[in-house]
């Protein structure tokens, strides 16, 4: 079953995506998945995120990182669905799901891909407040987390 890689403004339906993975193969025993959600920030009232990306390059890079995960772990099918545009507080941003024979591989590959999306993929994030907005600066803790994966 081919991997799914989508970058779009439209929302996704986790149940439909999960259902697609389940029917994939009789050797699948585990599906790890992740949903990222626009989160409020304690010290100021964020209303939305605006997410921009580099069409073409983003998809190509995600495809490369999915290939890396496939070589590194025993996994079957990967789904990556990343939204762009203006996303209000509480809205879904990103979906990553990985099916595998065993749960350890599915968890590791899912977290690896998420860390990549948050630190290396060509997405930029702007925080939107009631009367202002600002581009988010790169976060060192995320960079450190992603470099943990380097062999």
């Amino acid at each position, binding site marked *: 079953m081919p991997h799914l890689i989508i970058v779009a403004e439209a929302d996704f339906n986790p149940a439909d995506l999960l259902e697609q993975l389940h029917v994939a193969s009789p050797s699948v025993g585990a599906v790890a998945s992740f949903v990222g959600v626009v989160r409020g920030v304690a010290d100021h009232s964020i209303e939305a995120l605006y997410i921009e990306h*580099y069409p073409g*390059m983003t998809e190509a890079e995600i495809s490369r990182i999915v290939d890396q995960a496939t070589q590194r772990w025993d996994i079957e099918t990967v789904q990556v669905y990343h939204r762009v545009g203006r996303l209000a507080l509480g809205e879904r941003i990103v979906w990553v799901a990985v099916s595998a024979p065993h749960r350890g591989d599915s968890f590791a590959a899912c977290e690896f891909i998420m860390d990549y999306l948050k630190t290396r993929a060509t*997405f*930029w994030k702007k925080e939107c407040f009631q009367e202002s907005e600002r581009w988010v600066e790169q976060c060192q803790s995320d960079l450190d987390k992603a470099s943990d994966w380097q062999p």
Partner: protein
Amino acid sequence: MIVVRFFAALREVLGVDTVSLDADGISCVDDVLSSLSARGDEWRDALSAANLLVAINHAHAHADSPVQDGDEVAIFPPVTGG
């Protein structure tokens, strides 16, 4: 012709998302940056930021990476995830 694309904060500062450059005299990413910087102080200041990243044809590249006619060059600030 070389197409240059800008993203996020850099796109907003420059007020433009795409520029087309004549390929004459351009052999690497640094030449692209020099050509753009000659457009004025705002361009020179914005493009001199130390943390800008570059891609050629959707793959990460460096200041001395070769650029040729028909390439798509992208210049952008550090990515900040989704």
